[in-house]
């Protein structure tokens, strides 16, 4: 069963198209990263999933019903980009309040433990640091035990250590069979914490797959060697090659499949190949390539 289905969803603000004919299915139980630069339509998509925004056209279903119905059933928990707490309430009071609004909440102590808040439970929200506030907001998102957890750039205000702890907590929540969708523009986060990456740019899906597939799908690898004064003709016809550059007697061929390209270099040419190097693409290159094209 699909946790989420976007069917040709468009969202316009006046003339500005934030989401442009988005179609996307996310099966229950998966952890999906929405990766894209600022303004790609990630937050708009998440807000539409929550019923906070209405699509201009197209349809969104969450566990087979409208977002409003899914929210009313308590199926969704979310950590939005902005969200302050009530300053006069303690961590425990805020978490318990939100928890009790859901039909099948998690036990309070479990929620506090999951967000590393046990020691801060009695502290008032106006006495919390930025990172601690983020942890409370994570606790509010999971308190109701939602089947679908939406996180919109959850680590934006966190330092490196809090980030690591945060993703650890998120993964243990995912391990309970929950569906998680998080938006990020950090490639590393998408790579390390999801089993599927959906790259969005200008409101469209530009790539969709595992992090490895996305890296492989882009001609981001390169093979280079010393050519000397040998002729370069025919290199661009080799398997996988998308571009050839020559600089100071050294040739660099961009390829989507370095293994095939190297094999072809040795078998199909008679070139004397010296000082061969293979450069791997990282997700960063893939991401830049993908979001630039669109």
């Amino acid at each position, binding site marked *: 069963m699909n946790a989420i289905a976007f069917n040709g969803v468009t969202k316009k603000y006046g003339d500005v198209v934030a989401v442009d004919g988005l179609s996307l299915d996310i099966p229950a139980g998966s952890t999906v990263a929405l990766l894209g630069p600022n303004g790609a339509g990630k937050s708009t998509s998440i807000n539409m999933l929550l019923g906070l925004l209405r699509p201009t056209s197209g349809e969104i279903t969450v566990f087979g019903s409208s977002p409003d119905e899914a*929210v009313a059933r308590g199926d969704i928990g979310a950590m939005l980009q902005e969200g302050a707490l009530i300053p006069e309430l303690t961590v425990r*009071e805020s978490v318990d309040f939100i928890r009790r609004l859901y039909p099948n909440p998690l036990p309070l102590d479990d929620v506090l433990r999951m967000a590393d808040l046990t020691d801060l439970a009695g502290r008032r929200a106006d006495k919390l640091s930025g990172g601690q506030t983020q942890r409370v907001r994570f606790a509010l998102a999971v308190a109701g035990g939602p089947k679908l957890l939406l996180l919109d750039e959850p680590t934006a205000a966190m330092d490196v250590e809090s980030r690591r702890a945060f993703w650890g907590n998120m993964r243990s929540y995912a391990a309970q069979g929950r569906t998680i969708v998080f938006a990020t523009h950090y490639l590393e986060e998408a790579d390390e914490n999801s089993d599927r990456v959906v790259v969005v740019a200008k409101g469209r899906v530009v790539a969709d797959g595992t992090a490895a597939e996305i890296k492989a799908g882009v001609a981001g690898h390169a093979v280079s060697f010393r050519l000397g004064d040998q002729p370069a003709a025919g290199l661009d016809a080799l398997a996988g090659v998308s571009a050839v550059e020559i600089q100071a007697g050294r040739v660099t061929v961009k390829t989507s499949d370095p293994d095939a390209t190297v094999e072809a270099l040795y078998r199909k040419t008679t070139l004397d190949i010296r000082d061969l190097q293979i450069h791997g693409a990282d997700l960063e290159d893939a991401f830049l390539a993908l979001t630039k094209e669109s």
Partner: protein
Amino acid sequence: MRHYLKIELLRMLRNKRYIIFVIAFPVLFYLLYSNLWGSEVDQATGVKGSVTLMVSMGAYGALAASIMSSAVPWSQERQSGWLRQLQITPLPGWTIIVTKLIASMVLVLPALLLVALAAVLTQHVSLPAGEWVGLIAALWIGTIPFIALGLAIGSVLPPDTAQPVAVIGMFGLALLGGLWFPESLMPETMKSIAHVLPSYDYANIGWQIVAGETPQASMILGVAAWAVGLGALALLAYRRATVRA
């Protein structure tokens, strides 16, 4: 929803500024004024100053509590994202504004009751039981238009403008309603403004009760009409503030 109400009350009672403004102020001013003019007797009604002032300061406290417990907190919640946090839970949308109304009504009571208690303890004010019940009930139920006004302000304005508007609205209503000095001392134009305001009718209902009279129907209608008008405005503003575009 009961838990939501509890949370709302808890947070306001922990807010020191709120406590000082709406609970300590009216009680302190009552103590001060009743010491100065408490023993003067009104020629027309025979009501002692200590009793008239109890109604004035009780009404002022209730008015202040109504507006201050609604406008700014609600505006802050909208802007800070707490409203969104609630909107993505199974809590039905209408419970938010209903809970806020009930919470404000509960928060009106401490000011009202403490002023009355101060009157009884320091000025030995005594009224027939029926008048006590009528007075407290009238001043309590009569806060509905002011709470509605506060919620409307909170729905329409961001916190940094909601704060001064709420304070000006509160003092304006209190002054023109004759809570700080009698309306008979006002210049003619001010008087005619005062007469259409809900705070004027609101306080007069209280004064008539302690004078042993039945409040005039026109006064009750005045407060009720304002309650309906401002209530409708608050609902409209609330719907606009929570609309899903």
